């Protein structure tokens, strides 16, 4: 199986308090922020690796995973890290975040999919910076491929399809999607038995989470292919559909107050908060 995984580099969500908005309000100031791969994309990569190997012999590849990111030269470290983790090949589409929106990324990915011809595209359900949750869905629509979003489980099936489990209120919905398809993944996909590939014994259980790359894999990643593609090569029209009118920091939370008893609490909820 050949799988394309899209990765995005995002500002570390654990440092959200460092995000600053300049007085002009026209952008988010990203200087001084630490970057890391979007966690959901790391889960997507882990799922793709599990689908293209025998879990008992993860060093021998039994399929191909191509990772792609849209970003400036520095984002190649994100791609190298993905190659160290196990991906076979990487593509960087040269662009900066302000030149992109979900629609344009999906259109460019469509061209890449046509070039690379993967059997499956696996993506994070959303990037934790903009939380747009759009690219996977738009891409499937543009390709006219089936889609399964928010996957908690993926099972490879012999008949050229995958069975995707999605957590919904009150249970799990299972979708059978014919390949080629687009699947976006949720956190649960990295649980020990969330991904089943026909190459791995049913009884095998992975360690929970995303695998770690040791030094030899990091060294080997330097020799794996990483190519650069211009955005304009992939999308003739690079105009954005989504434009941002204004950025504004959320209002600072006011300090709480202490009440002396339930009566005072009820009184305040009624008269001040007006929620009762």
């Amino acid at each position, binding site marked *: 199986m050949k799988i394309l995984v899209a990765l995005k580099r995002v500002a570390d969500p654990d440092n959200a308090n460092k995000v600053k908005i300049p007085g002009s309000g026209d952008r988010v100031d990203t200087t001084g922020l630490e970057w*890391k791969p979007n966690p959901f994309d790391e889960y997507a990569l882990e799922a793709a690796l599990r689908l293209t190997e025998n879990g008992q012999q993860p060093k021998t590849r039994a399929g191909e995973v191509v990772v792609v990111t849209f970003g400036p030269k520095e984002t190649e470290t994100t791609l*190298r890290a993905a190659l*160290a983790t196990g991906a076979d090949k990487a593509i960087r589409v040269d662009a900066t975040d302000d030149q992109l929106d979900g629609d344009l990324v999906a259109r460019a990915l469509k061209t890449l999919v046509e070039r690379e011809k993967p059997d499956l595209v696996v993506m994070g359900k959303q990037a934790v910076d903009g939380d747009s949750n759009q690219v996977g869905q738009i891409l499937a629509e543009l390709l006219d491929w089936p889609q399964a979003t928010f996957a908690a489980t993926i099972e490879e099936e012999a008949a050229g399809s995958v069975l995707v489990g999605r957590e919904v209120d009150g249970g799990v919905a299972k979708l059978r999607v014919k390949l080629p398809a687009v699947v976006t993944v949720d956190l649960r996909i990295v649980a020990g038995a969330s991904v089943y590939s026909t190459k791995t014994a049913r009884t095998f259980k992975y360690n929970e*989470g995303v695998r770690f790359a*040791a*030094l*030899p*894999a*990091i060294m080997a990643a330097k020799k794996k292919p990483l190519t650069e593609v211009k955005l304009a090569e992939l999308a003739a029209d690079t105009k954005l559909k989504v434009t941002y009118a204004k950025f504004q920091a959320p209002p600072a939370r006011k300090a709480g107050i202490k009440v002396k008893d339930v009566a005072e609490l009820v009184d305040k909820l009624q008269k001040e908060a007006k929620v009762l």
Partner: protein
Amino acid sequence: MSSELIFETAEHTALREQARRFARTHIRPHAHAWDEAEEFPRELYRAAGEAGILGTSYPEELGGSGGDVSHVHAISEELVLEGHSVGAVVGIGSHGIALPPIVRVGTDAQKRKYVPPVLRGEKIAALAITEPGGGSDVASLATRAERDGDHYVVTGSKMFITSGCRADFVTTAVRTGGPGHGGVSLLVIESDTPGFQVSKRLKKTGWRASDTAEITFDRCRVPVANLIGEENQGFVPIMMNFATERIFLAGQCVAIAELCYRESIAYARERKAFGKPLSGFQVTRHKLADMATEIAAARGLLEACIARHLRGDNVTNLAAKAKNCATDMLMFVADEAVQIHGGYGYMRETLVERLWRDARLYPIGGGTREIMNELISKTEGY
């Protein structure tokens, strides 16, 4: 602010990122609880083995990950910075002093038998030099190993042994010959040998997540095949081991101090007194500036020491200086960090309180501050 050493490459950066992720998932959530419990789960060795962390600086033929001391430092620094448990980091790192003598002067059979299972995290290794009667004066150690056919019969005891409570084997300094350093040998003693006993699980000020043992040997029969290097030639590998151990310890000091510093900046910005944040007082800012300066100086010396070690220089002298410089620096920085945190800095829930307790070990372990000065005096040739 990056804490990377000047000569680090893109591989170090990638490795640091992996170590951070490991620490965030496997260590950080439990750091406080492990300190209170005075233990971390044995499973952590396996997880670190599987992630390739334990194998760093060991050859790939022995199941290692390759790399050198600089890679070990990069990983250990990130584990401290992100994991917040110095005890756990030194606990999973005890093989870093127990295995190198085997790798350096052991036979192929010994390497194959003892190294790979430890790097996989399946077995735990410890190093035992210090004895209840004295640690600084290594050449006077008293644990006897008498030859009896193809065995040594070992009797004596060892003190303050990191990971000793759970170790599967202990690289042990014993006396096979006459008095002085010419009578010292290294033996691998497996913990299931009859007569091997963890006589005491020691309670400590800091490094509490790691276990520390007093071990007694009562007529332990150890195969001669477990002799590391030549008989009565153990002193040199012990001393070589100390040089890298001191680099690791100086590196830990820099990492712990960096964490104290970061915690202090955050607290100084957030805590208010007299109507403004602590960082609004020049006194606080200057404290932080002094901390930053001391850290930078110790890091600079560490950097020089690692670079020289990697290019093959003998760093006995420089490693001793780097260790003393780093331990003094850490004692100062950790103390200032507690001071900036005020009463909270003295409370068990506060990270810098724990780091302050951890800090006190460094001028003692791996050769005391005074012994470092003895070494420096000797090598400078006064």
